């Protein structure tokens, strides 16, 4: 699980500083713009008339922005919607339908994590389609209106330029909303149906099931018998029996007693009927627990090195991503998560610790078995530590270890978790690697308490809300660019903003000189002269010039990186695909980010449109 830790960010803590930075930027932008406008006016018309004209402009702008009429804005939004329909938005929808229809051929429900695969597919497909559409619609509309002179009949009505810009943004947002809504509904059905399957039992397995059932009735023990389902979608399950959970309904259908293990991220329930005569009938349920929205409680991560001393980080094992730090097996090294504000009423059934560990093997060991790890809890106040259990790690697979509320340690102590280990709501969870010469890798978000599960359907909707926000953001940029650029150029600019936002990481690294092969010009030279990216270029004048130009380019990229939105903050696809709840705080953060960009884009777009001679 490689979700960045940003989903642990607290909205209440984030909003204050973020709003401050935003306000400073916006005020600087506004003041800068007003000064520029004034300077131009003074240069063109002289100091007195220029100042007057600049003040007039500001006055008119204030009126235009404050006295926006909903009626006219809605009329313009309606026009935008009709225009979008004429531009064959329907085609995008058709493309989506075709993609989904054929996706069944290349998406393998028998793969390791089919739910993740299916969810990633629908979320990625919809977001790319909708964002691409948003680029084209928003960037082309206003330039076409100006080129066809249709805008002349609009601006000679009592319409404010602000209403034209806002109407556009709202209209496109409405089109996108309907489109996304339809796509979300279809996606949901597609995922459910794509993952749906049932297992059956061979005749032998049926017999064994019947034996197991009879045994279980008699002495509550089913040891020694392992029953497997048949193989569907490339996997089979092992069946467990727990008669204590059984319920019977009026039709005589018995539920709850027979479940399967978890394979490929899901499990099944086996219901059965015991007829008066003949054999017991077993019926398999559709997959369960494969579409999740886990609500994690994250802890703070720190490390102990092999000698047991405190360390900021674990070991770096080389070309693994630096997000994870590694701890050495068979030593005193440990990864420690400290959790806060735990209450016993949150965890009536024990403390569910869920983890996804990276494993780095220096030797093969027993490749069939997982590298063993040990899980302990420690009271942060008293320093008292209790070993919970040793487990076999499953590399990069999510594993749930429930720490019981009461357990026995190896030396015979009985531990009451909340009484003995939790101090003032705080608890430490210690993870060690048992096998010598092997390593466990963990990052902050890799181990968490799975307090509860939220509704998957709601999480799915939130995931699409993220795409919706991205679409609104792109629409804002598109409309902004279209107020002063011609259609094709506006498309390029908007597309550039989209790419920059999607790959904002890369842009940052370019600007920080962290990419191999140097800046754009140097890279170009390397491309043309076919040189390797790590060797130094010969110290010629040419190289010096190239490096100087790159330096300038890097400054620009740094600036652009700072001005572009980070689209990853708005993309919740991973949350949905990996089964994590998108918290309301995260969603609120995304909404604020979107507004923080779309608001100024609207004002700027208005200023450009207002200053523009539309009939020129």
């Amino acid at each position, binding site marked *: 699980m490689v979700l960045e830790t940003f989903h642990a960010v607290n909205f209440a803590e984030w909003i204050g500083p973020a709003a401050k930075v935003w306000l400073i930027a916006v005020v600087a932008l506004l003041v800068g713009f007003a000064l520029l406008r004034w300077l131009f006016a003074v240069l063109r018309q002289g100091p007195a008339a220029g100042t007057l004209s600049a003040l007039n402009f500001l006055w008119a702008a204030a009126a235009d922005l404050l006295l926006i009429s909903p*009626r006219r804005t*809605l009329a313009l939004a309606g026009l935008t919607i*009709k225009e979008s329909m004429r531009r064959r938005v329907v085609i995008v929808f058709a493309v989506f339908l075709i993609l989904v229809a054929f996706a069944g051929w290349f998406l393998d429900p028998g793969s390791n994590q089919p739910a993740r695969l299916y969810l990633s597919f629908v979320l990625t497909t919809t977001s790319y389609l909708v964002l691409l559409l948003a680029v084209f619609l928003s960037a082309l509309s206003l330039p076409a209106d100006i080129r066809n002179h249709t*805008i*002349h*009949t609009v*601006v000679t*009505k009592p319409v*404010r330029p602000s209403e034209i810009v806002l109407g556009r943004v709202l209209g496109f947002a409405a089109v996108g909303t309907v489109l996304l809504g339809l796509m979300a509904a279809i996606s949901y059905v597609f995922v459910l149906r794509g993952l749906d399957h049932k297992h059956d039992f061979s005749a032998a397995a049926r017999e064994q099931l019947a034996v197991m059932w009879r045994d279980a009735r008699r002495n509550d023990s089913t040891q020694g018998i392992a029953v497997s389902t048949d193989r569907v979608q490339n996997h089979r399950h092992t069946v467990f029996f727990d008669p204590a959970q059984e319920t019977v309904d009026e039709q005589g259908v018995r539920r709850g007693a027979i479940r399967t293990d978890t394979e490929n991220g899901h499990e099944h329930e086996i219901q059965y009927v015991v007829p008066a005569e003949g054999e017991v009938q077993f019926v398999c349920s559709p997959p369960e627990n494969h579409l999740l929205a886990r609500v994690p409680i994250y802890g703070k991560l720190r490390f102990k090195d092999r000698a047991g001393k405190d360390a900021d980080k674990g070991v770096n094992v080389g070309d693994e991503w630096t997000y994870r730090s590694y701890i050495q097996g068979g030593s005193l090294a440990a990864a420690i998560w400290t959790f806060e504000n735990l209450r016993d009423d949150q965890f009536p059934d024990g403390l569910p610790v869920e983890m996804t560990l990276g494993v780095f093997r220096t030797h093969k060991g027993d490749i069939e078995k997982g590298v063993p790890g040990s899980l302990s809890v420690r009271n942060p106040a008293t320093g008292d530590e209790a070993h919970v259990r040793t487990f076999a790690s499953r590399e990069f697979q999510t594993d749930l270890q429930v720490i019981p509320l009461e357990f026995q340690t190896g030396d015979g102590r009985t531990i009451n978790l909340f009484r003995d280990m939790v101090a003032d709501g705080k608890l430490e969870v210690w993870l060690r690697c048992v096998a010598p010469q092997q390593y466990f890798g963990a990052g902050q978000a890799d181990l968490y308490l799975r307090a509860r599960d939220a509704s998957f359907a709601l999480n799915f909707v939130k995931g699409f809300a993220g795409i919706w926000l991205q679409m609104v953001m792109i629409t804002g940029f598109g409309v902004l660019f279209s107020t002063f650029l011609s259609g094709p150029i506006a498309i390029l600019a908007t597309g550039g903003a989209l790419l920059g936002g999607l790959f904002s990481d890369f842009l940052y690294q370019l600007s920080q000189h962290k990419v191999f092969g140097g800046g754009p010009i140097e890279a170009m030279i390397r491309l043309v002269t076919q040189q390797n990216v790590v060797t130094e270029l010969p110290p010629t004048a040419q190289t010096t010039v190239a490096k100087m130009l790159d330096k300038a380019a890097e400054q620009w990229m740094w600036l652009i990186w700072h001005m572009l939105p980070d689209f990853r903050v708005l993309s919740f696809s991973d949350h949905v695909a990996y089964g994590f709840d998108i918290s309301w705080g995260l969603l609120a953060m995304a909404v604020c980010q979107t507004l923080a960009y779309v608001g100024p884009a609207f004002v700027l777009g208005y200023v450009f449109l207002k200053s523009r001679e539309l009939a020129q």
Partner: protein
Amino acid sequence: MSAEVVIETRSLTKVYRDFWGRRKVEALKALDLDVRRGEIFGLLGPNGSGKTTTIKLILGLLFPTNGEALVFGRPAGDVEKNARIGYLPEESYLYRFLNAEETLDFYARLFRLPRAVRRQRVYDLIEQVGLQRAKRRQLREYSKGMTRRIGLAQALINDPELLLLDEPTTGLDPIGIREMKDLILHLRDQGKTILMCSHRLDDVQDVCDRIAILHQGELKELGRVDSLLKVRDMTEIRATGLSEEAKEEIRQVIARHGAQLLSCDNPTATLEELFVKIIRESEEHPGRRVRGVA
């Protein structure tokens, strides 16, 4: 005529520049004009003389290089004045994906009109410009004349006090031209002020009270049409039922007074008059009819 000035331009000047800010065309040079309430004012001039430029400057679609234009005493860039203005562009630039009804409904929504009034006005205007049968068709299917009509309808959607008509008769058939002229006169009679421009002399002569003649962006002549056109040293006599002898007698009277007779003939109707008469008759009595062969 009331003296209230509706449009005022003060040394209005427009220089078109290219992308780099270099001067390209001096389209309008220091124009001073007053248009008064209730009159039909005509801008007359050959192609490229700056008529459209003047109208666009008055509407705020272009920014003046120098001077200023005031409408209802407000600067041309002011939005609120637009509530009282109707504008028919040179070519009807309308949304081709809307039909006539949708078009008028859209423009009507841009004004503060109650729903019922809006509905009624859309209905009335479509009837007034004779597009009832085509009102559900997209404008992309319209002929030039039909587009012109719907363009006129959108200019009238707010029942404006002031109308700016750029070449209102181009693209219309003779009937349309006649109807357009009648409509303009009718609107004037309702008290509206009209500024129209045209390069067609007959249009301007037929409807305008006052005209300005532009050439290469300069104002060449300004005044009342009747006084501008009055030929003071000529007299026209028109009569009906005169016998040949009577005509001869008149000739002699003219000669006796030492004046010169320029012509004495049967007048020919203009082709426009003939055409309009035939079409009107045909509308009243449909069917095939061939008049005398010449």
